[in-house]
C-alpha cells in the first residue's frame, strides 16, 4: 500500500504527522527529479512486510531440532546452513547461531544501534530498538529477562551477545519438552521470534 492511498483512502483518517509529511515531500521530490523509482521502494517495503520474517528463522530452528547433522552445520557455519534452506541476504551476510542448553542461555542485543538478523527474523520489533533494552540488557540481563517473563534459574550461565560487527546472531532455543512426535512444521509453529532473540523460551508466549 503506498502512502497516498492510505491518506486518500480510509485507513488513516487522521492528519499526517510532521515526519510523514517530510517523508512524503522527500519521496515526491526524488521522483520528480528522476532519482527514485517508486516500485523499488514498494518492493523493499513489501519484502519486509509480507515476506522476510521470523517464520524463516523458525524453519531453521525446527529443522535443526529434527536433524542433528543440520544442527552441527548450523552451529559451525550459520550463513551456509541457513542458505541451505534458501534464506540469506542483507543484514544476514555473516550469521552466527548460538545454542541454548539447560546450563547456558544466550540473548542477543545491539547497544550501539539495533543490528538484527533480518533474513531470518525480519525487521526488529520496537522493544529491541528501544533505549531501555539497549541500555539494560548488557548490565542487568536477568532483570530484563524477568520483566519479559523469563525466570532463569540462578545456576544457568547467561551470555549476552552485543552485535557490534556485521556478524548477526540467532539463538537456537531449546526444543520444548513433550514434542517428540511433532512434525517439523508443527515444531516451527512453537518457535517464536522472542525465543530466537533469547528473551523467551520456545513454545511459550507468542513473540
Amino acid at each position: 500500500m503506498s502512502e497516498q492511498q492510505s491518506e486518500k483512502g480510509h485507513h488513516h483518517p487522521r492528519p499526517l504527522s510532521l515526519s510523514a509529511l517530510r517523508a512524503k515531500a522527500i519521496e515526491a521530490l526524488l521522483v520528480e527529479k528522476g532519482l527514485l523509482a517508486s516500485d523499488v521502494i514498494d518492493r523493499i517495503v513489501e519484502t519486509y512486510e509480507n515476506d522476510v520474517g521470523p517464520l524463516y528463522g523458525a524453519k531453521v530452528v525446527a529443522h535443526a531440532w529434527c536433524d542433528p547433522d543440520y544442527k552441527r552445520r548450523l552451529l559451525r557455519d550459520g550463513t551456509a546452513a541457513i542458505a541451505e534452506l534458501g534464506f540469506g541476504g542483507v543484514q544476514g551476510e555473516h550469521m552466527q547461531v548460538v545454542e541454548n542448553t539447560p546450563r547456558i542461555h544466550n540473548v542477543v542485543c545491539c547497544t550501539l544501534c539495533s543490528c538484527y538478523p533480518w533474513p531470518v527474523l525480519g525487521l526488529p520489533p520496537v522493544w529491541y530498538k528501544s533505549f531501555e533494552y539497549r541500555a539494560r540488557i548488557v548490565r542487568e540481563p536477568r532483570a530484563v529477562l524477568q520483566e519479559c517473563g523469563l525466570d532463569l534459574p540462578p545456576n544457568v550461565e547467561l551470555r549476552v551477545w552485543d552485535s557490534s560487527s556485521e556478524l548477526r546472531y540467532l539463538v537456537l532455543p531449546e526444543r520444548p519438552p513433550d514434542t517428540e512426535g511433532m512434525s517439523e512444521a508443527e515444531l516451527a509453529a512453537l518457535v517464536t521470534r522472542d525465543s530466537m532473540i533469547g528473551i523467551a523460551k520456545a513454545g511459550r508466549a507468542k513473540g
Partner: protein
Amino acid sequence: MNGIHDMGGMDGFGPVQRETNEPVFHEPWEGRVFAMNISGVGRPPSTIDAGRHGIERLDPARYLASSYYERWLARMEEAIVAGGALSRDEIEAKIKEFSANRDLPVPRREDPAAAEQISLLLRTGNPVTRTILRKPRFAVGDRVMTRNLNPHGHTRLPRYTRGKHGVITAHHGAHVFPDTNAHGLGENPQHLYTVRISARELWGDTAETNECVLIDLWESYLANDSSGTKPPPPRGPAKAKSAKSKASSRSRESSRVQSKSIRKKAR
C-alpha cells in the same frame, strides 16, 4: 565518538515495554523511509558504516526525542541535502504544498528492472569479509585487554567495554574496519574476534558471577593482556569468598530498585 547512541549500561530508561501483535511498520511513512534508506536513493554511494555514523551525529536531544524511523529520516535528509540532490528550501516548500493539500498524491516513476535488481540485492547482501595477508595477532583462548580508545569519529568499541580484560572465543577472519570506512578513509580490513568479558569485569563486584558479554572487536581495539595470571572472571574482594549465591541475591536486590522511566516516545 562518545555519543548518545552508545547506550550500553546506562541507567534511567525504565522497563522494556513490548507490544503484542506489533506491525512491521506502524505508519506507512516508516516503510517508505526504511526503503529509501536501504535503496540509497538521492545520495552519493555510501557505506553502512557512514550511515550509522550519520545517526550517531544527530543532536543528542533530538536522538532521544525521536523514534527509530524518525532518526532514519533525519539521517537520510542530512545525506541527501549534503549530497546536493535536494535543498532544504525545496523540501520545506514541498512540505507546505502537501500540508496545504492533503489529497495531493506522491508522483510515481516506475523502473521494473531496478525493482528486480533490488530484490536480488536484498537476497545476496553485502558481505564485509576480506582476504588480508597479515596473520591474526590473537588466537582463541588468548587473554586480551580492550584498549581505552576515544575517537571523535565512528567506532564500534562501546564505552562500557573499553579497558577491560577478556578472552578471545572466536576469530572470524578479516572484516572491513568501520572506524575508517565510515569516514571514506578506506575499508582497511582487520581481523575480527569475539571477546568474552565477564559481568564482574564490566560492572564490578556486585555483578553476577555467571554472566558475561560477548562482543565482536577488531584487532586494533585489542592489546595483549599483560597483567598475566587470572583476569577475566571474578576479581576484587568477592573473588576470595566465591559466594555465588550471595552475589546473585545481592544483585537481584539491586535490580528490584527500578528507576523511573523517562517518558518519551516508545518507538
